[in-house]
């Protein structure tokens, strides 16, 4: 079904870009104001626990995707149910990625252009990449991620003159309960979402390296996200909590001698490239998972219709931005839990009970 193989460093980079995806712009710890970096740090810790749980399952079935594992552990019927739930999550994640991407473009740059144009053009590019397989996605990712990191570092440098560490004080301004909730939010978005890569792990050419590259990716992405939060907080101060896209606003503050100003195209570019990778991975994972679930021989014909469904859903995700903000802040941390942790955990327990795996020797 997929002939391509990726190397462990490519997987690391994929993990990083996947985590960057939408969170590079829609900062996950937004609700915590200037403490967002702290929330992200805590969320990273929780995300690690999620990752460990998922890896505990994957360790027993090395070389198989989550859909195949479900089938093995639960048998064809219940397994399909589990897989369907997982695929639904991926699908929804992809569509909400598209949705937020359009929201940003519509609020910041293209105010008049109709949504469907932005969606369809973006989708066609994604489909083209997806059809080329995981190898091409990960190669694209190398180029895009390095350019993103370069732009990130460059803009960090440009913001040095408006960087005020004072703005980050006082630490722990808001109640601990709220902070923990936001931290949990960052654990489910973006860190917990790497479960989507459970569809990609099997294509590693050095099969034993996935754990290392996953953790490496988590740490690097976590550090950069935290750096970003610190930067945004220090540049914008308390007002950062008022903006829908604080990072975007931070870039708008750049002013070097009146020449390098208004570099807000940079965060949009970062967001679009990383979001493109995330959307491609999700579309790829959904199509591949569906094909595996239904025992098809190729996933390629599914990419097109699933992509179209994804953008239809993206248009039907939320009626307005406040619905979405409420969803990400209050609902998503709960909604994501079953897909990210609970279902894999139950599968793991079941596998333990049934004594899986039977043929392969688990590590």
């Amino acid at each position, binding site marked *: 079904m997929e002939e391509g193989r990726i190397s462990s460093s490519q997987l690391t980079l994929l993990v990083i870009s996947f985590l960057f995806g939408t969170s590079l712009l829609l900062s996950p710890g937004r609700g915590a104001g200037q403490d967002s970096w702290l929330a992200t740090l805590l969320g990273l810790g929780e995300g690690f626990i999620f990752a460990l749980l998922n890896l505990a399952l994957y360790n027993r079935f090395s070389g198989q995707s989550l859909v195949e594992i479900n089938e093995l552990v639960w048998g064809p019927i219940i397994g399909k149910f589990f897989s369907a739930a997982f695929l639904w999550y991926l699908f929804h994640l992809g569509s909400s990625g598209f949705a937020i991407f359009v929201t940003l473009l519509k609020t910041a740059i293209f105010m008049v252009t109709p949504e469907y144009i932005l969606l369809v053009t973006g989708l066609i590019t994604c489909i083209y990449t997806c059809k080329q397989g995981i190898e091409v996605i990960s190669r694209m990712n190398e180029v895009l991620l390095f350019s993103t990191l370069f732009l990130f570092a460059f803009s960090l440098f440009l913001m040095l003159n408006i960087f005020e560490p004072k703005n980050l004080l006082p630490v722990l301004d808001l109640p601990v309960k709220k902070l923990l909730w936001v931290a949990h939010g960052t654990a489910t978005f973006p860190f917990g979402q790497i479960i989507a890569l459970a569809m990609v792990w099997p294509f590693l050419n050095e099969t034993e390296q996935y754990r290392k590259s996953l953790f490496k990716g988590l740490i690097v992405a976590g550090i950069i996200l935290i750096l970003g939060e610190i930067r945004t907080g220090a540049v914008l101060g308390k007002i950062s909590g008022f903006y829908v896209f604080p990072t975007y606003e931070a870039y708008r503050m750049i002013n070097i001698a009146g020449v390098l100003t208004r570099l807000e195209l940079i965060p949009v570019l970062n967001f679009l490239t990383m979001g493109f990778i995330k959307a491609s991975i999700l579309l790829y994972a959904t199509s591949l998972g569906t094909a595996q679930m239904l025992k098809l*021989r*190729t996933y390629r014909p599914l990419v097109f219709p699933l992509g*179209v469904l994804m953008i239809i859903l993206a248009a039907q995700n939320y009626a307005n931005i406040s619905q979405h903000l409420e969803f990400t802040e209050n609902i998503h941390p709960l909604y994501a839990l079953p897909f990210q942790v609970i279902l894999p955990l139950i599968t793991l327990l079941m596998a333990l009970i049934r004594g899986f795996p039977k043929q392969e020797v688990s590590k």
Partner: protein
Amino acid sequence: MIFLVVLGFGLMIFLEMPELIQKKYYRELVVFCILTLIGLILSILLTLGVELPYLDPLIKKAITGIGKLFY
């Protein structure tokens, strides 16, 4: 507008179907057709201006409903 949508879907079918038939991937063909049909119906409904429910509020309702069950 509907014309455009149908045109788009037509192109999609035109691009995907021949290869599947040529290779005799009938199982894949069925799945492809079902998914395409769903997409076509949904997008026609949307272009006709039928108000479909939004997803985020639905999930919110479901989650709060489950929450109420426990309390």
